[in-house]
């Protein structure tokens, strides 16, 4: 099969045609390459952490170095991989196509947000190369403002800058989804991927300014000795925790909501069946975005927060779990009476369902105040949020990348290798992080360079799992690379899926649609319908 004569990939050559592009699809690829670089860097830090923890004594590196390793791992993975991952790559590529538009509402701002991201990333890399940061990705005060001797300012500036990339992307998505839908693309015909990104964008533009302000206050205290958080200067260290988690808890939903959107699409495509409970899935995304803003205090149950405030945060944390449960049940019901094909994207989606269920339910352990006292700041928390961020968000990202890869690249990849790597990721992930639940309940605190010997077996299991997980992540880089160079050409719709993105050529032309589509029904309508298709 031949690629369309002119598509977005061959429409313009040379560095300038990429670096100055306003095409949302090319910008998505710029993000794809840059977040992959950051993923590899963040993974290298994680590898060093897991190597150090093979033995109870801190013998591979100094304590200071170890502290920098887990800090840089967290900073890079959270701010430079997980938060931009699905929105900036898949969302950027697909949202205009899914709603029948030629581009995002603000193509130049879209390119600008990539440059801002790169600038922020450069600051963070400079911080890493010039000696690193050792505050933990949480930057808790007064350690970060008064005690730490590392490159806190450089890293903080990097995070501050990158936040604007996130804000601009969110703004672009919201305006695009409101204003650029094709005729007939009503709100309730939108693919659920788009709903999920709408909810995500709300959090991006409402939450991110708060982390920017918080980082500025940290900088003001550190550089100008303005007393904000440090009690020695008259400040309040717990205030920082409120401000930090006001953004950083919703930020978890920035990571997981887009993955949920991906899963909604994959489950429909590989069951050849429309979603069960469309409006419940759509509105549960909005509910998560809204309620998610009012649960931050569950990070402060042992920080001397008022007990009554704690009660409110606890009950709201349990409530935010309900929309997630609704989604899981609806996805499962969607498979019922489907035509199920276990291709690699579906394997990732099933992996997501299992791991997100465990990750979500173990979050309830932490929302239960009396139980949180024991497990707070232990490996139980580490295991929980990795089940959400790695088991949830990265499984969703990889599933989406496999699902839309033929559309993005115009080529197929090796399905047997993809299935194998999905299995490796699933097995490696569980072996890495399940033992950490046990270590956490036993009482092993997080961020420990050395630990008592009775935790060694669990840590060895965890490190062994991490090596399997690493292999599972490296294999796709290889076969996707091979696919780009020599993969078989893909048809417009290699999966037999339904949706606007599958009706246009692979890879799409620069303008996406040569004729503006008129939409007459929602996505993923597989049964021969009385309604006509897309005109």
């Amino acid at each position: 099969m031949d690629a369309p004569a002119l598509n977005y990939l061959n429409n313009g050559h040379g560095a300038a045609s990429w670096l100055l592009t306003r095409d949302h699809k090319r910008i998505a690829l710029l993000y794809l390459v840059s977040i992959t670089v950051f993923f590899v860097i963040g993974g290298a830090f994680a590898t060093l952490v897991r190597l150090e923890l093979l033995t109870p004594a801190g013998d591979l590196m100094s304590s200071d170095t170890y502290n920098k390793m887990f800090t840089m791992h967290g900073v890079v993975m959270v701010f430079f991989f997980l938060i931009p991952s699905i929105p900036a790559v898949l969302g950027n590529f697909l949202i205009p196509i899914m709603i029948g538009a030629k581009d995002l509402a603000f193509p130049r701002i879209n390119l600008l947000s990539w440059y801002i991201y790169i600038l922020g990333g450069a600051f963070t890399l400079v911080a890493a190369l010039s000696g690193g940061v050792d505050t933990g990705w949480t930057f808790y005060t007064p350690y970060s403002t008064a005690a730490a001797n590392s490159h806190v300012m450089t890293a903080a500036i990097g995070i501050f800058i990158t936040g604007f990339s996130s804000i601009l992307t969110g703004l672009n998505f919201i305006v695009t989804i409101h204003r650029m839908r094709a005729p007939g693309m009503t709100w309730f015909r939108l693919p659920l991927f788009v709903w999920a990104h709408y909810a995500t964008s709300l959090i991006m533009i409402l939450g991110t300014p708060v982390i920017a302000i918080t980082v500025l206050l940290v900088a003001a205290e550190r550089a100008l000795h303005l007393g904000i958080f440090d009690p020695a200067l008259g400040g309040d260290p717990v205030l920082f925790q409120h401000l930090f988690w006001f953004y950083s808890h919703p930020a978890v939903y920035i990571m997981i909501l887009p993955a949920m959107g991906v899963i909604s699409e994959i489950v429909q495509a590989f069951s050849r069946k429309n979603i069960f409970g469309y409006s419940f899935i759509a509105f549960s995304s909005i509910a998560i975005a809204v309620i998610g803003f009012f649960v931050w205090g569950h990070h402060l149950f042992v920080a001397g927060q008022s007990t009554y405030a704690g009660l409110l945060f606890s009950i709201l944390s349990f409530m935010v779990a309900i929309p997630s449960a609704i989604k899981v049940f609806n996805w499962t019901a969607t498979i019922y009476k489907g035509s199920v094909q276990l291709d690699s994207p579906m394997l990732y989606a099933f992996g997501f369902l299992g791991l997100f269920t465990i990750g979500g339910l173990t979050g309830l352990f932490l929302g239960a105040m009396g139980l949180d006292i024991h497990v707070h700041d232990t490996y139980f928390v580490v295991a929980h949020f990795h089940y959400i961020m790695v088991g949830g968000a990265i499984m969703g990202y990889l599933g989406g990348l496999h699902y839309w890869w033929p559309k993005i690249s115009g080529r197929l990849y090796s399905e047997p290798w993809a299935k194998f790597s999905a299995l490796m990721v699933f097995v490696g992930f569980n072996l890495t992080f399940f033992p950490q639940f046990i270590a956490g309940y036993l009482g092993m605190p997080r961020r420990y360079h050395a630990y008592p010997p009775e935790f060694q077996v669990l840590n060895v299991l965890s490190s062994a799992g991490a090596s399997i997980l690493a292999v599972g992540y490296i294999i796709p880089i290889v076969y996707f690379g091979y696919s780009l160079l020599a993969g078989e050409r893909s048809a417009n719709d290699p999966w037999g899926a339904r949706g606007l993105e599958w009706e246009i050529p692979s890879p799409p032309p620069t303008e996406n649609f040569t004729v503006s589509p008129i939409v007459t029904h929602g996505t993923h309508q597989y049964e021969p319908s009385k309604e006509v298709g897309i005109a």
Partner: protein
Amino acid sequence: MGPPRATEPGPGAEPRLEMSTNLPLFPQQASSQAGQVDAIYFFMVAVTAFFGLLIATLIVIFSVKYRRRSDDEVGVAIHGSLALELLWTIIPFFIAMGMFAWGAKVFFDLYRVPAGAMEIFVVGKQWMWKVQHASGQREINELHVPIGRPVKLIMGSEDVLHSYYIPAFRVKADVIPGRYNTMWFKATRPGTYHLFCAEYCGTKHSGMIGSVIAMEPADYQAWLDGGKSEDTPAAAGERLFTSLACITCHSGDASGRGPALAGIYGHEVELQGGGKVVVDDAYLRESIVNPQAKLVNGFPPLMPTFQGMVSEEQLLQLIAYVKSLKGPAPGGAQPPGGPQSAPAPEKK
């Protein structure tokens, strides 16, 4: 865990003898609260296992039963079911609310200190735990406590955030500079247990560990008696009260320029500009490091700050001294009467 090694400080008390091949799955229960926390833990593990297995089973059954049999096969269009949506909204909601209520109840039990709890002062600093018992006995990175008796820890930090964590007791509380946090427990089984700092505090965070040694009351008494005699915190506080010249103004008689302190602890005082405050550890601490924050009504703002002049431990000793003063309060906090006419001479 072996028998308590009552008087032996240092690394010998750490349980470092296990082979590193043992694989513990569950922590020891050594406090009156541990059982409560574990009960809710097991319930939540059961709920997680149930829903995890339910979803996994359904996925496997559906994937096999409805596997694609021909390339052009499509699924049956089913748009949803309100009854099912309500079912899987309402049931998880009630389970979640049950977990919330249970977790909150356990929290309150862990939070409310029983009357008559024995008070011990803890100061965290990079990277050690300093402890002083009411009898004056001090220790570092260890904590000796009797079993069967509620123990309340009053904790402050000299530098950054720390967190005092005893896994075998299922208790933890952040130790925060600039304020006091408290926690309590009742040890139930003699033994030596891990003490960890759970809040990241810099280079040697993972070295800020130690042991909690729970002892039979008689053994604990013997341990207290065996230590070299030191001033009680209250006695040390009394000396500070004189050496820092607090006594000049807080003289306790009508001529004092500051409120008399005898019997003031635990009572309400009226504040300048209206309002009242109960004199507790937090208020006394604030009144020493930031005296102008909440002035007792009728007294001029004369007192200088002692921030940076007294250490966290000395603060705790001063507070212990004020607590130990029995007296006629709350009347003691009354101003000397009349307008404050006398120009205030220099402090000291």
